[in-house]
């Protein structure tokens, strides 16, 4: 992998899609995916991520903007002229051809006569050498998925597009295939663009994640960056769980902002606040549940100085092995989530107990209070749909 080679860069400039019925699937967006990276488009269903992918593949004509692969403008090229291959959501293997011929399909279409060696090598890479003469319907879901990957990769595309490729697999197989795909990507060094609605999958596999919502990219960055510094309530809630507390700006001290929430004061580093801050203005204070420590109210004096603190009462506690998840009813927010590692369990932390929640101000982030505080929260109905 050479970083100077830019021939596998994907550049989308102002690309957008509005259907004839007036529905805008993708609002004009700019995106650059560097050569050799594992890039994930993450979002709930209907957010425009698959449409974006299909516009790169040439299966969907954009209504505005351009698609570049390296220096080549491919916006108006039909799919069969693009050096791009796709792993489809349902695999779309050819049912009348055996595994060997499915994998050889792309090579044969480009007029390559002696395909045997290449196909066998590729089938070995995905560990399906034994299945070459079987028909797709004779294979399991996971095997079909690997055939779909092999069939696309054998063409050495500049970019491999994966449209929810693991959606049809069960959880255990999905984990296994995530690692497998990551291994293959590292091995071949091709740019992968992966579309998924599963935030864990995106974070496990991708170097860079673009979170999409309602046809636009909400935020783009490395998984750690997105998780630690979400810029919008959607990202904060969609990637993992966030506690968002409404607060009022009180004053500034050095690099920190001091906020009033309920009766207490909270400190937030100015660099971690994406909202405009002026005295008296509103800000949403965010903190991840695993960053919070719980101390019984009787021991409140032992909490070190300089930590953000809130008081509350344990409403619910569920033990899930490695950690215990608490729901805390506090004056500033009636459902604060707190995850505590089960290292030294305090027997007094049971529902009904009065507690103090405290955390390092460095872990706090600030968001614009003008947004919907529940954006991106997955509800039960959405999950079922």
């Amino acid at each position, binding site marked *: 992998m050479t970083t100077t080679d830019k021939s596998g860069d994907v550049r989308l400039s102002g690309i957008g899609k509005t259907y004839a019925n007036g529905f805008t699937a993708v609002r004009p967006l700019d995106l650059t995916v560097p050569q050799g990276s594992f890039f994930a488009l993450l979002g709930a269903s209907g957010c425009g991520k698959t449409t974006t992918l299909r516009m790169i593949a040439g299966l969907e004509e954009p209504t505005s903007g351009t698609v570049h692969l390296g220096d080549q403008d491919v916006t108006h090229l039909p799919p*069969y002229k693009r050096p791009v291959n796709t792993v489809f959501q349902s695999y779309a293997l050819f049912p009348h051809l055996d595994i060997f011929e499915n994998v050889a*399909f792309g090579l044969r279409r480009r007029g390559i006569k002696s395909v045997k060696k290449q196909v066998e090598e590729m089938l070995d890479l995905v560990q399906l050498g034994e299945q070459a003469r079987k028909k797709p319907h004779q294979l399991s879901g996971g095997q079909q998925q690997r055939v779909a990957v092999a069939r696309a990769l054998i063409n050495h595309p500049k970019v491999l597009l994966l449209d929810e490729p693991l959606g049809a697999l069960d959880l255990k197989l999905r984990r296994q295939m995530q690692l497998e795909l990551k291994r293959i990507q590292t091995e071949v060094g091709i740019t992968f663009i992966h579309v998924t609605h599963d935030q864990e999958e995106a974070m496990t596999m991708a170097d860079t994640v673009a979170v999409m919502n309602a046809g636009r990219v909400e935020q783009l960055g490395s998984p750690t960056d997105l998780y630690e510094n979400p810029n919008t309530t959607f990202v904060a809630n969609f990637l993992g769980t966030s506690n968002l507390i409404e607060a009022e700006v009180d004053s500034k001290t050095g690099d920190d902002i001091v906020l009033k929430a309920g009766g207490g004061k909270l400190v937030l580093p100015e660099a971690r606040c994406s909202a405009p801050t002026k005295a008296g203005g509103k800000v949403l204070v965010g903190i991840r549940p695993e960053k919070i420590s719980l101390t019984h109210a009787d021991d409140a004096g032992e909490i070190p100085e300089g930590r953000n603190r809130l008081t509350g009462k344990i409403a619910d506690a569920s033990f899930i092995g490695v950690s215990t998840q608490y729901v805390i009813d506090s004056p500033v927010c009636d459902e604060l989530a707190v995850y505590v590692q089960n290292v030294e369990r305090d027997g007094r932390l049971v529902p009904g107990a009065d507690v103090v929640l405290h955390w390092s101000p460095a872990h706090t982030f600030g968001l614009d209070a003008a947004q919907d505080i529940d954006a991106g929260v997955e509800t039960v109905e959405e999950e079922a749909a």
Partner: protein
Amino acid sequence: MSTLTEAPPPLAPAEPAKKSPRKRGRFTPYWLLLPGLLWLVVFFALPMIYQASTSVQTGSLEQGYKVTWHFVTYWQALSEYWPQFLRSVFYAAAATILCLLLGYPLAYTIAFRAGRWKNLIMILVIAPFFTSFLIRTLAWKTILADNGPIVHTLNSLHILDLTSFLGWTAGDRVLATPLAVVCGLTYNFLPFMILPLYTSLERIDGRLHEAAGDLYAKPWTTFRKVTFPLSMPGVVSGTLLTFIPAAGDYVNAELLGSTDTRMIGNVIQTQFLRILDYPTAAALSFILMAAILFMVTVYIRRSGTEDLV
């Protein structure tokens, strides 16, 4: 050996209670088969046996017929009427190919391109069935009439010169020629081609077309390598549903043809209803059946459809 005799006693008490509902259920499939089976016996198996026996009888209407195992009838029928047999196969094959050429693009359009017009076009395909077969065929007499607009146009374009040179038409007429009979056959059996084609094209996952395009197949290659092979079950059943009845048809040759375009169906009809030579008519029917069975078997073997889902 001793274990065999010891085994039953402990099982015995549980058996009667368990077995009775299962026993009743075991015969249900046969009861369900019974009406269809009876129908087949009365209207297919018995007439076949009767015809088979007729074909080896000798005698006359006045003195009655007797089974004399007179197999020579078969040989005589075949040696006298082989031109009509050949002609039937040719006409039916020509009509089948024409049906395929006309029907495939239409079925393809309905399956993939028709959008919200799909149902309307399907109704239009089936609509001719609301009129009688005879009336539809008679209508072709008007369409192909000697002084009608079609013959007039073909004549002025000198197309009829070409077709009569090939022996498909005679002079400046279309009626009473092989072309008219094949046209009639094609028209009448076209829906039998379109429906199975449509069904198998409709079942093809549209994403396979996208996948083929994504894997560097141009639209025409996608059709050749993906769409057409996947529609083979429809092609095979469509051609069979067209060829088999067309080979035995006599209405089209009767109404649109002449004595020179008689098909085997016409011969059988004449033998049965006018000459009243039942053994020859029965023998001809069996030869036709055997010939079609043979051709169909070879065809299915060669097209290898059992391999396709």
